[in-house]
Each structure stands twice: as structure tokens, then as C-alpha cells.
């Protein structure tokens, strides 16, 4: 892997359902029946969506969203496995 990998996460204790992240990047976030947001799946951000993830972070009035760079190989492979497992029918 040559490019950096990011993971996005919504802190459920901070989210108040402004829905800004969902509006900015619906491919990264989903809402529950109360309108509270969470990252889709493991929160691994596809390369092309990193700028949208950053926008979601920068538009959350509650500072509830974090974008973390995954540098440790073990962490990365663990997440990749999870992601692959999720796409299996």
C-alpha cells in the first residue's frame, strides 16, 4: 500500500443528529431511526472519499467525528479483513 488509509468514526455520545455528515457524505455515514449518525461498516474511508470525510469532520457542530490515519500495519490488516468479510453475501 502506497497511499495513506483513514478511518472515520462518529462518537455516539456526542452526536446530536444534526445530520451534516450524512448530508455531506452519505456514502460514509448512515442514520438510525432517531436520525443519529454512525460510520458505515468499519468506517474505512475509500481513497476517493477522504476529502468528503474531512468535510464531514469540519461541518459537525458537536465535534463528534474523528478521522484517524491508520499507520500500524496490524491495525490495517485487521480492518481490511473485516471489510472483506462484510462484502461477503
Amino acid at each position, binding site marked *: 500500500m502506497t497511499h495513506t488509509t483513514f478511518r472515520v468514526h462518529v462518537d455516539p455520545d456526542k452526536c*446530536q443528529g444534526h445530520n451534516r455528515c450524512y448530508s455531506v457524505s452519505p456514502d460514509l455515514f448512515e442514520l438510525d431511526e432517531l436520525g443519529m449518525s454512525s460510520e458505515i461498516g468499519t468506517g474505512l474511508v475509500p481513497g476517493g472519499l477522504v476529502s468528503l470525510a474531512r468535510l464531514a469532520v469540519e461541518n459537525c457542530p458537536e465535534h463528534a467525528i474523528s478521522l484517524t490515519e491508520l499507520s500500524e500495519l496490524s491495525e490495517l490488516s485487521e480492518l481490511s479483513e473485516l471489510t472483506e468479510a462484510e462484502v461477503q453475501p
Partner: protein
Amino acid sequence: MTNRHPPVGDFATDFDHTDPAWVADPYPIWDDLRQRCPVAHSDRYGGTWLPVTHDLVSEVAYDHEHFTSRSVVVSERRPGPDDLPAPIGVSPPISSDPPYHGLVRRMLLPAFTPRPIAALEPFTRELCRELLEGTEGRASFDAAVDYAQHIPVRVIVRFLGFPQEDADMFRSIIRLVLEEVDLPPEEREERFTEVDAYMDAQIEDHIAHPRDDLTSFLIDAEIGGQKLPVEQIRGTMVLLMIAGIDTTWSAIGASLWHLAQHPEDRRRLAAEPSLMDTAVEELLRAYAPVTMARLVATDFDFHGHPFKEGDWLLLPFPAANRDPAAFENPGLVQLDRARNRHAAFGLGRHRCLGSNLARMELRVALQEWLARYPDFELADPAAVSWSAGQVRGPRALPVTILQSGR
């Protein structure tokens, strides 16, 4: 409106949110207080505090230990022994405190998520077109009175399932409840009684004839396996009506007021429809209509200020949105502002329940307006007047149409 209070000398020690200077243009007042205070105090309304920085406004919004939401409209009358006590308050959940607040909010939230709100969009769009149709051929008219004010009232009336022909009556009630806060307490009391009577009649009608609307939703709703007492249904309906109308009317009007004075912005928005989403957020930031309020719940020291139980506190989210410590060039409207953590809908647990509804209405109202009238300007800047109180928006907004589309 006529001001019933003496004029303000120094806003740092004697502010009044119904003072003509504040009503006309509060931003320089807040900018000045942010430098000098940044927590102002006034003996008016029996003692009121005013923090004006983003940090302090956030701190209060997140603090449910030292502040109560039992009453959120500053007036001469504080909640008395006959009002529903905390943590419920007169109009739950806006007037409720945790943990009860969370129960009511969870009950209401599903009705306000993007999906049910999207279902109201075609009605809203059709309504906007119909209103604009009504202005056809007029070179000049009032964008606040003839357009903006009709949109939220008719949408909420439809959402609640009340007769559309009652929309006009609501507008006058709401103005009295929200804006004329310095009326004598007895007179305000009388108005509230009228509203309650109307709501009771609607509830009875919906119990007899249930339908798919917000009123029937509230009648069926349960908290902890219990149906809501009728006064709570009524209180919540009054809240939804009041909170949903004046506020959005103000946001639409203020946005049109801005566009009327900024030809480059209206042309850009008309030419680049994809800019609408960031533009709506930026207009909400710059012209956030709603200032909330809290009551101090217990004596304590707030950054060196002796807060006393029962003191009012104005919570000016619009001032937080203009804080240079939180926003670059806060006085400048940048329709493509990409980083925008504005607090127009509040912060924390009391985040505006209807934020998705308000955003949809503002977006549709601007889209339809610009499609019909891509170019327009203020007919007479001196004739523009603003509402007094905790909801700020233009109440007279005469415009001249320069170019008509469609």
C-alpha cells in the same frame, strides 16, 4: 413594534433584546461585547446574563447542571408554581431537562429524520410556486409578507394535520407569543389561553378521527408505556407550531434580504445550483434567527460572574456564529464556505428537532424564488423592519424585481 422599555445606554450592563438598536442590527453590539466582557449583564426582566463568544455559548448549552431549560423565552414572567415543574416544563421537550428530556426527544425524533421530511418537499415546492405565481406581474412586493411568512406556517399546519385555512390565525398568535415579550403578564396569559383552546379542539377532533399526521402521532405516542397527558400533547403541539414557523420564516426572509443586496451572490447561486447546500448553511450561520434562553438552576460562579438561581440567561447562537475565534471572516457571507460548524440549530441535547425541516424549507424557498426571480433588489432599504425578541428576521422586506425567469 413600540418599545415599552427605556432606551439602553450601555449594552454591557443594561442590554435589552427588544431595544431598537439591537433589533435593527445586533452584530456590532455582540462584536463590542465580545471584546469588552464577554458576559454582559442586565437588571431587566428581573436579571439577565448574556455570553457572546462561541466557547461560552457552547459551555452553557452543554451544562445541564447549572442551567435549566424550564423556560426558554425571556419575558417579565418567570415560570410559577402553577406551571409544569422541571424537568418537564411548559412545552416539552424544549422546556425539559435531562433525563426526562431524552425520553420525550426520543419519542419525537423519528418524525423529523430526513425521510419523513423529504415527504413534505413536493408540497413545499408546490406551495412556493403557488405563492410566487401570486406575485406575477408585480414590479415590487414584500418578500417577507407575500412570500416567506406563508411557507413555514402552511407546511407545519399540514404536518400537524390542521385545516389549511387556519394558517393566517397562527401567524398572529405566534407574533404575540414570541415577539411581544414585554407585554403585561396578564395580557400574555390571555393569549396563551386562546392557543390552548384551539389545540384542545384539534386534539378532540383527531381522537375522534385519527389520521396520518403529527397530531395523531402525538396522541398515539407513549413514554415508558404511558400515553401522554393531554396538557403535554398540547404543550408539544404549541411548541412545534411556534418553533417551526417564526424561525423558518426569519431564515428565508433574512436570506432573501442578503441576496437582494448582493448581486454577485444571487447571480452565482442562480448560475451554480450545486452551490445551494453550502449556501444554505452559510446563510444559516450568518443570519441564524434563534437566540435561546436558560434559567440559572443554582447559585454558582460563572467565569467570575455571580450567577444566582432564577437569573435569566440569553443564549445567542447567532453571536456564537459571528465569533472570529470560531469562524474565519465571520462577518463575510461566503456561499461556498466549506468548513462550517455553525450553531444555528443550537448545540447539545436541545439541537433543534426540526433542523431537517427548516433546511428543506429554506433550500426549496430559495431555489423556487431564484428560478422565478433571478435578479431583484431592495425597493427601499429604510422600509425593511426586523422582529424583536429571540427570533430575528425581516418582517417587512419590500423588493423590486429586476428580472423575471420561467
